[in-house]
């Protein structure tokens, strides 16, 4: 634990940003491009500030000026291509470390950035007086793949008529994708934002809209926003579109925006926002920090909710009309989440990534309070249980989730989470699932803290943090005040101890500094002689994702005489706990039994053990430990617990326990709870499914009509004709939810032949037939969708005689009926679409199920057509899910290809993310299974996808990594040829490619190749040198997948499209320019000794990678550099397989042996060596220069930490 003890915030940068102007003067929807400039006002905090590192991705930068002087700059983004394009290295361990290195190399929290600006020497002297520097950057974005998303429907009319819009998005700090900035949550400044848009459009952004002014031609207008509250760049957003405006009728400073035609929905959906506002302001006793609030609803949203300073961007699919029941609570939840993040996350920002959990935890926690107030305690407790189950399940399955990672020394060796296939050092390397679980755990831990210190204190702490921040925010720039708006774990804990006076250290240590959850096994025995309950609580702390718990635990025992709480101490070695019982067993006396809540009830005690006074026992009933409890008690005890315990969590636990006791008594208990209207509806819904399970287990002894049938008839059918359901009236929501659930659960019933009983199927078909919604004021689309799901559930595998093709003729009669309904529903949906096309979604699932069960021929074409862009997103996702399933079942390579192509090309980010997510969840094959699909081409394709194809979207890249991990595991995929063989082949291939063009000068080509191997930045650098263009950025920008000829254009014009690194490098070999470039390159090599800045930046990231290589390389000897990238890669298999390593060594030697034969490779390595030497020199120099850098840190860190160490910044490309 290396938490910062000092309260003040230390900026990793040698300057402090105070103000930033962002001006976007042109947004072209046709070309999907953006042109603008930014101006950053900085205060140097060191003398002689000569370099400024900023973040910028995919922007094309035209010029940079510092205080009106043209400034040279370098653009270098190692995350574009993580590993060398040509490398045949395919193991995920290698990728993960390289990726982490690349992200670290530009991490703004460490003071790094992709854009390095050299401060003109004229200004250096000024540095002494710590004068203001104004950095002016002109930039443009062309068809951005990340950061900004353009939605341009392809219809007739002007852009406004078409509903074209654009909005910013991103996962964590991603603002650098759309304008250059310091993309860190901890660098606050005030903002001036100007957006010039078409006169028919509206630009919504952060802060207060000061004025809107027409341009001179009156065709455009400029929106001027001012954000006086210091805000971090990642919290800045923009959305532009022909929005309809709705001023909130209750709060005039709140404005809502939606796309054309949706205004009525917006009015309805936003009609309760003011209540959420009131709630938060009341509990936090703090006014909403910003002067205004804006909500924007956009299509093709990246996530459902994203919060930015004083505005939130939502998915337009959250809007709903008054007729929709199911969407209403979901939308309200999303609004509440967004608003909670306004306070904690936007207004109060985090100090570092390690402190993320505090902010997410607090916002999640107050969101929970809102849920409790709005939806009730039952709903809240149900939600907490759900979240707890989720995190417990995830951690036990995947390993621990660490809230507060500390990285002492920044070495990967101290990786706190070795079980993960990604690094948790950066938000951008996290898997999405992990991040979701992280959020879940954060708010649960906040709740644990609340349990410890009371809610009152908790709210006081929040209030204190907010008031400190708002005091700070109103100050003019003073270097230390604004840091009050940053929250760190330390400051939070200190505030807690100040307010409450309690020490929550152990709690924090257990849940925050340590990952994993606790797993309890409980059992008991009743000692009649001593009248003592002997409780045994064991723990499993050896399997993955578990930890040992020591401390108090609450146990609630319901006895005949009442309910009693006991607090036991879980200690190292004590397993058994004796709990004295209060009551004697005396079942004969008729007496009411008092419950925990004071209620007294009559119970039928005939089922219970005559000797024991125990009714039921609960371990940790308040969920005050992040745990999983497996407790053993008799079935009648579970039944008592279900019937009489008033806590919904206890009821749900007992329902899941009763699944193992298929007895008539369980059936009765479940039926009773199902009928009981006072019971929480979600418990009743769960009881439906449990009842179905039990009925199936009891199939041979089951008596009476199918489970739930008579109950359903009693509740929902007409009195006069019990086979007909009443016309719909969803006024009572509880029974609405039950109405929806019961058929679905009933369809799971099976008879002795394991078929769905005829009764049940007819019953469901009748429900569909007699469904009548004419008199209902609510839409029944969700209900109908559930009925289709019920039909789906009733399907059982077809009896296949042989592998004959399924035809219409041999269709089973029941299936024919089902199919007819589905066809009709699906067709009707085309004519009268339902809300969110829920019915289509259900139908697609049903069709897939029919296919899977062999009733109809398995065919992906239907799903493919529904998965196309242009369908509603829910429909697409459902169709894609079916396709993913098809791919798995049929092991179809073409479909997998189709899906992967869609991942690369689909316009909607959410859909791409979803495809990869579904593929990981339902993989066509796994690392343990063999499959024909697993071949080299697929490995290469996926590798390329995560290596370079997804550089524009952090989330997507992590999804790709996840999929790769699921399919191939951490080590080299087994389907690849043996590494030795592969290497030889590769070399030959390479030779074959390169040899024809290799001329004596071609050593250079190889050299460049090497540069590329380190990452794209290398290419960028070398070409800057080559072309003498004041436009290195365009090279740095270069994304993969762009037309290769772009390079030549680029060299001539900065507007050209960027090249694809790998391809070009080979293509250009015969280019004259390259020959010229070769010469230059050599020259540069000569000058390299004199601290060439270009090479330095190359090293910045390169150094990282090599550092990791060294770390991973088992026989690594410090100081000895790997001969080549390939070799290094090969000599570090993740799991040390001895034979494997032998092969690698032999292969590397072979590789080495070939050097003489191949000129090209020779140069290749020579180049590398030179670089390495160079690097070492730097290292030594640094040691001399700065003594505090003596510890073994990589030198890029050293650079960044001493940017003012007098290093000259010189680049041949920068001619003033």
């Amino acid at each position: 634990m290396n938490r910062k003890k000092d309260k003040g915030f230390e900026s990793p940068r040698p300057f402090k940003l105070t103000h930033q102007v962002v001006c976007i003067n042109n947004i072209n929807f046709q070309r999907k491009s953006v042109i603008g400039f930014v101006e950053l006002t900085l205060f140097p905090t060191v003398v002689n500030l000569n370099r400024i590192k900023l973040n910028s991705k995919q922007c094309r930068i035209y010029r940079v000026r510092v205080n009106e002087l043209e400034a040279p700059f370098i653009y270098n983004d190692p995350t574009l291509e993580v590993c060398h394009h040509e490398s045949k290295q395919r193991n995920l361990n290698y990728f993960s470390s390289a990726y982490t290195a690349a992200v670290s190399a530009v991490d703004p929290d460490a003071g790094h950035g992709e854009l390095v600006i050299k401060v003109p020497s004229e200004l250096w002297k000024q540095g002494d007086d710590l004068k203001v520097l104004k950095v002016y950057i002109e930039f443009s974005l062309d068809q951005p793949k990340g950061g900004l998303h353009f939605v341009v429907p392809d219809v007739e009319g002007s852009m406004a008529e078409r509903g074209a819009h654009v909005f910013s998005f991103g996962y964590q700090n991603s603002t650098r994708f759309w304008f250059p900035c310091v993309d860190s949550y901890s660098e606050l400044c005030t903002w001036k934002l100007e957006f010039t848009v078409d006169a028919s459009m509206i630009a919504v952004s952060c802060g207060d809209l000061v004025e809107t002014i027409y341009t001179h031609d009156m065709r455009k207008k400029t929106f001027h926003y001012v954000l006086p509250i210091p805000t971090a760049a990642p919290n800045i957003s923009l959305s532009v579109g022909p929005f309809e405006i709705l001023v909130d009728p209750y709060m005039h400073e709140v404005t809502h925006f939606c796309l054309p035609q949706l205004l009525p929905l917006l009015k309805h959906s936003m009609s309760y926002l003011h209540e959420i506002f009131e709630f938060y302001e009341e509990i936090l006793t703090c006014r909403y920090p910003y002067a205004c609030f804006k909500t924007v609803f956009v299509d093709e949203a990246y996530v459902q909710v994203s919060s930015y300073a004083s505005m939130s961007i939502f998915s337009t699919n959250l809007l709903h009309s008054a007729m929709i029941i199911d969407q209403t609570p979901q939308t309200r939840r999303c609004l509440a989440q967004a608003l909670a993040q306004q306070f904690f996350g936007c207004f109060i920002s985090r100090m570092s990534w390690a402190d993320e959990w505090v902010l997410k935890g607090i916002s999640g926690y107050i969101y929970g309070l809102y849920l409790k107030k709005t939806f009730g305690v039952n709903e809240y407790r149900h939600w907490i249980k759900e979240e707890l189950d989720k995190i417990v399940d995830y951690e036990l399955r995947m390993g621990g989730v660490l809230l507060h990672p500390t990285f002492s020394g920044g070495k990967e060796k101290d990786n706190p989470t070795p079980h993960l296939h990604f690094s948790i050092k950066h938000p951008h390397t996290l898997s999405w699932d992990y991040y979701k679980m992280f959020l879940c755990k954060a708010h649960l831990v906040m709740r644990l803290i609340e349990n410890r210190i009371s809610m009152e204190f908790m709210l006081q702490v929040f209030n204190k943090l907010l008031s400190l921040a708002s005091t700070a925010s109103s100050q003019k720039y003073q270097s230390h005040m604004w840091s009050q708006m940053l929250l760190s774990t330390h400051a939070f804990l200190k505030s807690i101890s100040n307010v409450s006076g309690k020490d929550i250290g152990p709690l924090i240590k257990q849940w925050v500094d340590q990952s994993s959850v606790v797993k309890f096994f409980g059992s008991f025995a009743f000692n009649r002689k001593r009248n003592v309950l002997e409780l045994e609580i064991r723990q499993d702390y050896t399997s993955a994702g578990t930890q040992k718990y020591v401390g108090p635990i609450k146990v609630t025992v319901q006895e005949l005489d009442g309910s009693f709480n006991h607090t036991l101490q879980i200690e190292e070695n004590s397993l058994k706990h004796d709990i004295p019982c209060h009551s004697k067993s005396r079942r004969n006396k008729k007496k009411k039994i008092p419950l925990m809540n004071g209620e007294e009830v009559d119970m039928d005690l005939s089922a219970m053990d005559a000797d024991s006074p125990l009714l039921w026992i609960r371990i940790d009933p308040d969920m005050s430990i992040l745990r999983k409890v497996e407790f053993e008690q008799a079935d009648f005890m579970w039944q008592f617990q279900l019937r009489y315990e008033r806590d919904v969590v206890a009821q749900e636990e007992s329902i899941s326990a009763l699944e193992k006791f298929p007895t008539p008594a369980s059936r009765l208990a479940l039926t009773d709870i199902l009928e009981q209207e006072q019971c929480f509806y979600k418990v009743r819904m769960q009881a439906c499914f449990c009842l179905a399970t039990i009925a199936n287990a009891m199939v041979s002894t089951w008596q009476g009509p199918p489970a739930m049938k008579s109950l359903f008839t009693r509740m929902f059918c007409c009195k006069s004709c019990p086979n007909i359901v009443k016309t719909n009236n969803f006024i009572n929501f509880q029974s609405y939810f039950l109405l929806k659930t019961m058929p679905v659960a009933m369809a799971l019933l099976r008879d002795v032949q394991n078929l769905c009983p005829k009764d049940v199927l007819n019953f469901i078909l009748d429900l569909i037939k007699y469904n009548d919604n004419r008199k209902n004021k609510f839409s029944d689309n969700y209900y109908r969708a559930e009925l289709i799901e019920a039909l789906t559930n009733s399907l059982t595998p077809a009896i296949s005689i042989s592998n004959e093709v399924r035809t219409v003729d041999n269709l089973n009669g029941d299936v024919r009926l089902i199919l007819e309904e589905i066809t009709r529903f699906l067709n009707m949906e085309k004519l009268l679409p339902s809300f969110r096309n829920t019915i289509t979604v259900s139908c697609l699932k049903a069709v897939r199920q029919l296919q899977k069960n062999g009733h109809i021929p398995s065919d992906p074409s239907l799903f493919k057509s529904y998965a196309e862009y242009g369908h509603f997103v829910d429909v697409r996702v459902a169709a894609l899910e079916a396709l993913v399933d098809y791919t798995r079942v049929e092991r179809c390579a073409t479909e997998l290809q189709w899906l992967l192509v869609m991942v690369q090309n689909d316009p909607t980010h959410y859909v791409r993310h979803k495809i990869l997510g579904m593929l990981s969840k339902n993989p066509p094959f796994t690392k343990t299974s063999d499959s024909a699909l697993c071949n080299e081409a697929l490995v290469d394709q996926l590798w390329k996808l995560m290596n370079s194809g997804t550089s524009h979207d952090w989330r997507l890249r992590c999804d790709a990594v996840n999929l790769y991990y699921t399919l191939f595991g951490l080590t080299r995929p087994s389907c690849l040829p043996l590494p030795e063989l592969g290497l030889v082949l590769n070399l030959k291939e390479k030779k074959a490619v390169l040899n024809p063009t290799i001329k004596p000068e071609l050593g250079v080509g190889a050299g460049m190749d090497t540069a590329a191997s380190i990452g794209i930045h290398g290419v960028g650098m070398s070409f800057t040198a080559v072309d003498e263009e004041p436009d290195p950025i365009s090279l740095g920008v270069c994304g993969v997948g762009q037309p290769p000829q772009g390079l030549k254009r680029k060299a001539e014009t900065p507007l050209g499209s960027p090249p694809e690194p790998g391809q070009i490098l080979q293509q250009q070999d015969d280019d004259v320019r390259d020959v010229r470039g070769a010469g230059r390159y050599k020259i540069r090599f000569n000058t390299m000794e004199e601290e060439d800045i270009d090479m330095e930046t190359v090293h910045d990231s390169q150094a990282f990678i090599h550092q990791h290589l060294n770390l991973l390389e088992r026989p690594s000897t410090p100081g000895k550099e790997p001969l080549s990238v390939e070799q290094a890669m090969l000599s570090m298999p993740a799991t040390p397989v001895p034979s494997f390593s032998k092969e690698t060594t032999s292969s590397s030697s072979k590789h080495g042996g070939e050097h003489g034969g191949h000129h090209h490779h020779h140069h290749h390595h020579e180049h590398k060596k030179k670089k390495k030497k160079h690097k070492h020199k730097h290292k030594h120099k640094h040691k001399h220069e700065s003594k505090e850098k003596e510890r073994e840190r990589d030198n890029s860190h050293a650079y960044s930490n001493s940017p003012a160490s007098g290093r000259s910044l010189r680049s041949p490309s920068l001619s003033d």
Partner: protein
Amino acid sequence: MMQSYISEIGRCAKAYCEHTARSLPTLPDTVVTLVEMGFNVDTLPVYAKRSQRMVITAPPVTNQPATPRALSAGQKRTHPSHIPSHFPEFPDPHTYIKTPTFREPVSDYQVVREKAASQRRDVERALTRFMAKTGETQSLFKDDVTAFPLIAARPTTIPYLSALLPSELELQTLEETDSSEQDDQTDSENATGNNISDDPGADKENSMLPPGGVAPAAKASEDNVIDNPYLRPVKKPKVRRKK
């Protein structure tokens, strides 16, 4: 000739009588008529008293054949009290009683529901089959593309509109049920969450919900006083603000 003469006399006599606002012709009317027709009335008594006039004997009185009783259709209705008894009797009941000729409609709930359901289903099936026949289709079976035809999925340019906006049919239903169940809704919404606090604003809020109606109008006037930056007019560029 004779007949027309006599009927002419009768007609004229009737005309004279009606002329004097009577309904039955009297002797003078006939006399005037005869005079008018150029007949010497004075000769009439002479003619009547002539000696050789023929005496026509009265026809033998035959028994009036009893008219067969009309088919009696039920009891004749007696006059209600406000009609004097001297007025003519009601005609036979069959002249005014209506006898339903169709069968009594089935009002049994079950059958009605059954019928409504199958009707709707038939309409839907016919409609979808028609759409499927006339448009592009997808099929679940390779061998028989006509079985279970599915209307082809066609991507739309703005998919969220149709998915989010309620269809016209639903809107119509909403309007019908809206007025009657306004209050119920408020209750039930409070009932769903287990303890939604009794916020006085909640009721007001719900009454604001339905699209149309009073709320927007009220808000429109409100908006005029709201100082929201997005509602302010766009400023003209200043001359000095040249870029």
